[in-house]
């Protein structure tokens, strides 16, 4: 793939922003922002694939992220044997009964022809089926939640390395997206937006309240990392040698031995933090580049051309024999899967899973602002949007403090207005986000890096 000049400019801007922050606020801060920027960029690419390629709106970002997060827990947390013993069989029975119920309903739908009888039979069997399932299910979940509720109280996971969860998270999100897509994709775009938003709320509230599965509002903490821990690094010989080697000129200037040891220790502590964040950044960057590569390939392929045709004129594409419904479903699922991957990565980075932290403002609308600002239909634009918006989301607070201090420089430090404004600094970022979105939609509706128009 070849970049245009303005695209190189965009890439340079992104890189220089982090170098700038690195020098002003320290490399640790810069890397923290970079990591979240990369994850945001992946989410944005996910949304961009469904919205930018095919015009399928997906306001369920929050739900898919949460599914990815759940995957991270289920893959990496060690299994809790007592919980399985307490409620595993009950859960198994209720799940088996659920399968039986579904089969029964399908059987009835097939055999009973008369419509009224079918409705009556179906509602009867569903009602009593659910009553019976509930009995087993509630008992089982109750037992599970009673097992050591302070630290466990849920089933745990598989105890595998958390990095596998990035794939599993994608699959989880894809599964949920498949169901949502089957149900809702026939709707008009603004209905679809509302419905996906609503369903993502349902997904999150299930994760919040089904404690046997996700520990709910009690949160899961201490997930294992795919990268080394700081404390291990600080005691590893190779790392100490590396730090000594990198800072040899600085250390050699210090004559006193104990002083030198002191400086070295500080350097090692700082260095270990940066090393961990850097390893995350490299892992994330690899995933981002892989997704970017394939997304671009797909966009340039005949399949991508078909998607654009469907987006630009659904009727015409349909008349040309393209299965619009099926393709919409496919692209919705792919987009959601990428968002799910990002969700698993997010939990991996934090090391904890907090279902109550999934709020639509932060995890759906901000992502959409990234897509719109970056440029829908252009993958580099999506990445750029993710970087720029997350960067300004974080740096809005220091910037606002600076501006307020400048504007109110004439007022005394105890002035009520000044104090009130300084207290509400965190809320100015919403103002910035709204204004950025409105300005972009008004003056550059195709985004900062617009989709390339191809005449081929």
């Amino acid at each position: 793939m070849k970049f245009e000049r303005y695209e190189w400019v965009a890439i340079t801007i992104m890189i220089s922003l982090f170098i700038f922050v690195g020098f002003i606020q320290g490399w640790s801060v810069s890397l923290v922002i970079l990591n979240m920027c990369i994850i945001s960029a992946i989410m944005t690419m996910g949304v961009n694939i469904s919205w930018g390629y095919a015009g399928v709106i997906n306001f369920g970002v929050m739900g898919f992220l949460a599914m990815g997060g759940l995957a991270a827990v289920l893959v990496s947390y060690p299994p809790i044997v007592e919980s399985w013993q307490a409620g595993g069989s009950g859960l198994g029975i209720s799940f088996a009964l659920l399968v039986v119920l579904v089969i029964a309903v399908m059987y009835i739908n097939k055999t009973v022809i008369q419509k009224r009888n079918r409705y009556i039979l179906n509602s009867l069997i569903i009602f009593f089926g659910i009553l019976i399932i509930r009995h087993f299910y509630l008992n089982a979940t109750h037992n599970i939640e009673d097992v050591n509720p302070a630290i466990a109280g849920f089933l745990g996971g598989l105890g595998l390395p958390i990095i596998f969860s990035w794939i599993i998270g994608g699959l989880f999100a894809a599964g949920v997206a498949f169901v949502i897509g089957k149900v809702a994709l026939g709707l008009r775009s603004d209905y679809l937006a509302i419905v996906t938003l609503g369903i993502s709320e349902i997904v999150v509230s299930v994760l919040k309240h089904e404690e046997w599965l996700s520990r709910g509002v009690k949160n899961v903490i201490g997930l294992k990392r795919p990268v080394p821990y700081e404390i291990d690094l600080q005691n590893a010989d190779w790392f100490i040698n590396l730090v000594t080697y990198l800072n040899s000129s600085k250390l050699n200037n210090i004559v006193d031995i104990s002083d030198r040891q002191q400086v070295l220790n500080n350097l090692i502590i700082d260095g270990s933090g940066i090393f961990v964040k850097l390893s995350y950044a490299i892992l994330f960057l690899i995933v981002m580049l892989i997704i970017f590569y394939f997304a671009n390939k797909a966009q340039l392929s005949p399949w991508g051309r078909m998607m654009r045709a469907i987006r630009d004129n659904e009727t015409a594409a349909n008349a040309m024999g393209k299965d619009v419904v099926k393709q919409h479903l496919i692209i919705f699922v792919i987009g959601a899967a990428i968002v799910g991957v990002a969700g698993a990565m997010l939990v991996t980075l934090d090391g904890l899973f907090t279902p109550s932290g999934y709020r639509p403002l932060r995890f759906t609308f901000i992502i959409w602002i990234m897509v719109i600002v970056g440029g829908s239909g252009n993958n580099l634009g999506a990445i750029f949007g993710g970087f720029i918006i997350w960067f300004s989301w974080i740096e809005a607070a220091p910037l606002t403090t600076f501006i307020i201090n400048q504007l109110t420089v004439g007022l005394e430090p105890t002035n009520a207005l000044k104090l009130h404004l300084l207290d509400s600094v965190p809320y100015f970022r919403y103002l910035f986000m709204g204004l950025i979105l409105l300005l972009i939609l008004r003056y550059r509706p195709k985004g900062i890096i617009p989709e390339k128009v191809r005449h081929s």
Partner: protein
Amino acid sequence: MIDFLNSIIVLLNFIIIPGISYGSQLALGALGVTFVYAILRFANFAHGEIMSFGAMITILFTWFFQSQNIGLGILPTALLALPVGIIATIILCIISDKFVFQYYRYQKSVPVVLAMVSIGVMFVINAIIRIIIGTETIKFSDGQKFIIKAKQFKVMTGLNEGLALKSSQVITILITILLLTFTFWFLQKTKTGKSMRAFSDNEDLALLSGINPDRVVFTTWVIVGVLACVAGTLYGLDKSYKPIIYLNLVLPIFASAIVGGIGSPFGAVIGGYVIAFSEIMVTYAYKKFFVYILPSSIEPTGLVQLLSTDYKFAVSFSILVIVLLIRPSGIFKGRVL
């Protein structure tokens, strides 16, 4: 017989009265969304924040009046501040239209773009509210809190169950009836109302017959401002004001509007009550009710609760999804005022 009365009181106290008052708040909100949808033809995600803004202005003026010792006696002071809040909300709506929505209307943008724009407006209003009033929970209802207290009722009737009637609930219901009557009268009988209906039915035809679109849009925003401010204030008065809540309220409001048939004002009102009652009825524990009404031999042991109250919000979306699946146009076929 006594048991039967007791069970009725239980239902009244825990389902019917809260359902009607919550339903009224949702209905007013959904009516506002419906107006925007029918005239301006987009889904206004900023509606919740507009409601919140109206409530905020009302609260600020309530505090002002309280500090001046101006009150309404047994009625909450907020009712006195409500007109100011309404005017401020109308001004907010007009400003947001002039500076933001108008451009896209003249451009004839597709509804999705307008929905995105409304998300931008949502962020801006959200930030303004938080900067002005913060994120704390605010209780601003004063005056007499209860019309009937549970204990009083027990003494009065000699029943086991008490019936509590909050004054905010009665105020909500009365104001809703007033406002709905006025809105429907306005739409059906006045010339402006008729021109609005014509505009929502067929824009081109309305323009041909000499209806001024800017005037129709202006009137729409005025009505939306009134409805949003009243709905927001009533919700805050009844529960308590918390800026975050209003964002979560947008979804039940949309659900109400769609369930009733988006674009149809009557449908929006009905949808509001449908959503409110189903949220409350599905998550209520019926044990007390069955204890009274069934003979003691077959009394239920569990709570007799369909879903735990944690899933309150999920219920409304589930109903939304079910309605869209079975009857995509909503209960009343919409799109026309």
